[in-house]
């Protein structure tokens, strides 16, 4: 037999993760934790807002997770906000600072920040959809001067599910960010808005021609939020959304994330509404 196993180190398999160390782990809600990671040698991840990484735990598997920290605040580290829903995410929640996980990426098309500069920004995040949007929002906030108005809408099911409270507070406290949030169902301490995220739209008035909208949330949210955005006159080419699909490779090979002719991992996960509208399988 001819020797059949070849070392591909010199050829860099795209499936080979780098080892990243968990620096900090913060419990956010019952189901979500935020992990701060560092690549070997403090190397920068070099991500765009909206891109994702494939996180590996050996023996458990891999899962795509959006980077929720923004490049403008990287300091050689990056953050992931992970909801515990299955094998990989459960195991990840069981880790401690100092533990090591595999990371591949960043992958995919994020939000095209260069097209956004100079424009008014409208963000609409539902639930865990804040994770990828936070990356973009903070980048915009950090380059605040380069943008017009900045409006952030955020909705969760219940006050106990609110993520990134410190960021929310910072945005709320800024005069140059218009921040609104709501919960589907309040509790006794909740004094804010109650209702689904679409109930926030009537409160705002915008110049649609100059506005870029970015949204992320669970599949059911999209239909209604998109309707609201369109009804305000924002052109389909100026509405960006980030989609979630099953992914096994993250690099446009495995086929799982295909939405009609698009590969969510490669052509997305961020798409303009113009790209995907009419695709039955997209939303």
């Amino acid at each position, binding site marked *: 037999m001819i020797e059949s196993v070849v070392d591909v180190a010199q050829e860099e398999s795209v499936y080979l993760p780098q080892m990243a160390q968990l620096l900090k782990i913060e419990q956010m809600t019952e189901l979500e934790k935020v992990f701060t990671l560092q690549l070997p040698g403090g190397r920068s991840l070099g991500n765009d807002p909206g891109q994702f990484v494939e996180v590996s*735990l050996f023996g*458990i598997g891999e899962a795509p997770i959006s980077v929720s920290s923004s490049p403008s605040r990287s300091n050689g580290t990056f953050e992931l906000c992970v909801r515990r829903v*299955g*094998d990989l995410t*459960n*195991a990840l929640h*069981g*880790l401690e600072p100092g533990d090591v996980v595999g990371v591949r990426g960043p992958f995919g098309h994020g939000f095209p920040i260069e097209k956004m500069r100079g424009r008014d920004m409208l963000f609409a995040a539902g639930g865990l959809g804040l994770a990828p949007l936070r990356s973009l929002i903070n980048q915009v906030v950090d380059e605040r001067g380069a943008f017009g108005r900045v409006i952030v809408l955020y909705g969760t099911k219940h006050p106990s599910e609110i993520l990134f409270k410190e960021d929310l507070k910072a945005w709320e406290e800024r005069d140059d960010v218009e921040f609104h949030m709501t919960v589907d169902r309040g509790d006794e301490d909740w004094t804010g808005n109650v209702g689904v995220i679409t109930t926030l739209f009537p409160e705002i008035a915008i110049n649609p021609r100059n506005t870029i909208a970015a949204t992320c949330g669970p599949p059911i949210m999209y239909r209604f939020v998109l309707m609201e955005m369109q009804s305000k006159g924002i052109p389909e080419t100026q509405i960006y959304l980030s989609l979630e699909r099953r992914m096994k490779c993250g690099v446009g090979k495995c086929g799982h994330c295909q939405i009609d002719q698009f590969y969510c991992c490669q052509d997305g996960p961020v798409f303009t509404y113009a790209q995907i509208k009419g695709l039955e399988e997209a939303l």
Partner: protein
Amino acid sequence: MAENGRPKVAFFDFACCEGCQLTVVDSLQTHLELVEAVEIVQFREAMTEKGEDYQIAFIEGSCTREQDEARLREIREQADIVVALGACAHIAGVNAIKNVQPSLQDVREYVYGDKWEQYDSYAARPISAVIEVDAVIPGCPIDRFEFLDVVKKLLLGKKPSVPDYPVCVECKLKENVCILETGGTCLGPITRAGCDAIYPTYGVGCLGCRGLISNPNENAMMDVLEEAGLTVEQLMSKMTMFNAYEPAHIGEAVASPAEE
């Protein structure tokens, strides 16, 4: 990580042939380290000790008598994780063929004559009809590699899942000549994979021992079998060799397939 240390495991059996437990013993041929990975505290077929302190219970066999129910509940009470081991426990398997005979009394009389009443037995049920089950290892008998796979998933704290796609996938991955193409009959298109398509590989159409996938197109399957030349009786036989258990049939006599 949510890894479970070295859990205590116990094996139990009800109405069955014990072939699945035997397969567990067979798995030691290639994986003797199993005895290091878990602590076996009860395994009547192979050991004398009977520890009642266990976290994982593997249960083989169908429930066919009232007294079985109480025992099953006891096991459920003790175990953190209950795994149905093999077709009898998973889907009642061949035991349920008696459920589709003319009547249970007839079945008992046929075998025990006028003393039939001494021999307690009701319609065969999978153990999930009596207690909650956390995982299944399908098959008649189980596939030993799948058994090991489930054990490893449990040790890793993963969901101990088994495939939910049809046998055809594995069959084609092995590049078998399809039994349907050679004029035979096969339940592979609707039967849960995980056996490495062992029946078609050895020239016999799948008999369905691993139970059906979650969304089987049974009507289309029956059309295919009829097309392949099975009579209605033969077709019903085929569909009920391992998959005769229907909750709806329990407690009532059902017409035998041959009498339809």
